[in-house]
């Protein structure tokens, strides 16, 4: 047992400030444990989201010492102990209370993306014939736990607030998983270009750096989508064919 200092942001959308808490911690504890300890012993109404405590649900996103992290996967012994540990809500979304933010925008935006639209199954029992190597990339993107840490760090959302024009890295990953699915037949390229703002991404890769699932968001999702868009809409031959009403 040793004692640490937490500096937790508390407040709501209109105002708030940092509160300091001193608490005793055990070997191997993570930031979320320390927050829970404060909640149980000193501040029962301290608001924080969590579910799995194992990095699987993506509920406990916050900024720990300024770094976007899952609190349940951040060991206290990886942080300096000579200064208080600062814990703040993520910033790209409106604050509800303390560490909880209103992330409903992500759910609304997802609705605007065309859902999975399968071809006819290859086997009479309904299965598709797909080889493991053909789905590795899709599976990488489907690892996403919707923690929205990537949305939080993307400057297009965080600093420029383009929430109306840009769906952000998480939903680009979602779109890429659909576009790369071997059995999907829908075309999302036009909407990605026009409504979903794929062009806003300027490949800074900040999203990739923070992804707790280690999804190569920029290289494996966004860039392939951008390439497809370029192919489809800026390749002179394709443009002519499209004007003539001929599809690939």
């Amino acid at each position, binding site marked *: 047992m040793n004692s640490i200092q937490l500096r937790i942001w508390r407040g709501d959308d209109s105002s708030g400030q940092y509160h300091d808490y001193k608490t005793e911690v055990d070997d191997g504890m993570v930031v979320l444990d320390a927050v829970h300890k404060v909640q149980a012993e000193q501040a*029962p109404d301290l608001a924080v989201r969590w579910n*799995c405590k194992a990095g699987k649900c*993506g509920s406990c996103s916050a900024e720990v010492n300024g770094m976007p992290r899952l609190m349940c996967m951040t060991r206290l012994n990886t942080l300096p102990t000579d200064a208080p540990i600062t814990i703040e809500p993520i910033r790209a979304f409106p604050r509800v209370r303390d560490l909880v933010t209103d992330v409903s925008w992500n759910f609304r935006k997802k609705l605007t993306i065309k*859902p999975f639209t399968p071809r006819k*199954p290859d086997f009479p*029992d309904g299965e598709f014939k797909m080889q493991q190597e053909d789905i590795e990339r899709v599976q990488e993107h489907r690892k996403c736990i919707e923690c929205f840490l990537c949305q939080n760090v993307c400057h297009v959302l965080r600093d420029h607030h383009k929430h109306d024009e840009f769906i952000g890295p998480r939903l680009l990953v979602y779109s890429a998983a659909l576009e790369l699915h071997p059995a999907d037949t829908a075309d999302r390229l036009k909407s990605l270009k026009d409504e979903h703002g794929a062009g806003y991404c300027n490949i800074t890769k900040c999203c990739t750096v923070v992804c707790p699932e280690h999804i190569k968001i920029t290289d494996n999702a966004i860039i392939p989508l951008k390439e497809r868009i370029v192919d489809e809409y800026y390749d002179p031959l394709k443009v002519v064919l499209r004007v003539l009403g001929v599809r690939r």
Partner: protein
Amino acid sequence: MTDYQLHEHDVLVIGAGGAGLRAAIEASAMGVKVACVCKSLLGKAHTVMAEGGMAAALANVDDRDNWMVHFTDTMRGGQYLNNWRMAELHAKEAPARVRELEQWGAVFDRTKQGRILQRNFGGHRYPRLAHVGDRTGLEMIRTLQDHGIHRGIDFFMECTTIELLTDGGRVAGAVGYDRERGQFHAWLARAVVIATGGVGKAFKITSNSWEYTGDGQSLAYRVGADLMDMEFVQFHPTGMVWPPSVRGILVTEGVRGEGGRLLNNAGKRFMFDDIPDLYKNQVAKDVEEGWRYVIGDKNANRPPELLTRDHVARCINREVKEGRGSPHGGVFLDIAWIKGRQDANGKAIDSHYIERKLPSMYHQFKQLADIDITAVAMEVGPTTHYIMGGIKVDGDSQMSTTPGLFAAGEAAAGLHGANRLGGNSLSDLIVFGKRAGEYAAKFARDKGAVTLDQNQVQSAIRKALAPLERGASGENPYQVMYDLQATMQDLVGIVRVESEMARAIEEIAKLRKRAAGVGSGGDRTYNPGWHTCVDLENLLTVAESIARCAIERKESRGAQFREDYPAKDAEWGKYNLVTRRNADGSMKVEKAALTPMRDDLKKLVEEYK
């Protein structure tokens, strides 16, 4: 009078895990108006945490598999207390439900033929679990979520239902509050599906999250529905034991499915020492045969680590109690030993192979415990994982004993009997989620409208607001919850004795009094202290039911192990235990005779012994 928002629907689904989402999708497909309410954000329910896979006799990997083998495996695992009709429907319908997920965009791991790959799991005769690495639950919930949001269902995220509404003898909806703003809501509905999951938070060491406070079971109980089999709580044999803060977090059975062996502190593979009679013909003779099974040799039997969970958990418990445990009070689970052996394709296994087969376990141990599982053994011990019991339902329709109230998934009882096989929960969710949604929609269509009783709404709201009125001067709700968890863990845990459980009942009565005086400072916006106050009554109800049923059942069977009655008793094999609310509010536990099994199914059980 407190303000609240009123919503009107044909079907109200409470819960958005696999069962709730599947029910909502089905009800909506039947053309009725559906609401789906859940305590967390969409996609965060417990289902997201499932790792190993979902059981379905697809026969993609071993063509000897079929619904009959799956049925008999499930019944054997449940020690024949299962609702056999549910076990039959489950085995027959799971393959179509799994393939339907593929049609909705799920991307399962593949066989060489390009079909859905299946893996071994405890108690399943053949490789049967469709999976995606060790994140199968995520794949399921995301698939259902992404499909469900386009089906015209009204979702209410981060809303907690606190009481069911009734109209005459019938259920008429529910009252609740939204967690973000603390507004109250009433959902008026002609049929309600409860899919709220389990009760793990009644115990100290658990793989379950804060959501598992037994809400659905308690809400149903309070309107008079029967609960069944509540004594059967599954302690998963392998939870993490160190560091202390992650104690209880699950280590998937997939580790053993891939060949992981259990060792005591003398390095002995102790599971070979104690093979139960029901499985005598199905266990490997030695280490080599066990390994051949793991890599798919059809003539080999399973290693003893892949026996049912109740048995493995008790063996681990025994090793620890008798002083052969690991430094932090568990035993060793070793997957690193498979390095250098040959895999199914004759290739030598290396660290990378293990990392690829068990990616989230690899990361979980690396990040939380500084341990590289491809090099050293993990320390594991039993953790409260699942409740086989729950709301008693009709096998075909999933309707409870209260008209208009349906239940599916972990909140319902019947499919698993005295013990659940790994992988049979995820398939349960989609098979019976679909059925519950379908029958609830039919019920809503066939029966007339319901009327709202203002008094019921207001009294539920008053009850919920009481802890806020007591404010910070009331007792700390977290303390009451911890004390309950310690009581259940120590007195109604893996090894049970009458005297201890009787003490638990007394403790629960005292805790009830304390729960009536808990309070929380702060206001109604996202206030976890207040939420915990509201949850306490539900936790106490399920805890009491578990303890009372466990006392009543004077035998050891499946997940229930009684030190004072260590043997199985054929007489007790004829009954389920039902929990019901007396008119005066006290709790009654009653024996209910099993329905005799259909002859054709009986024959199957004999044939596959």
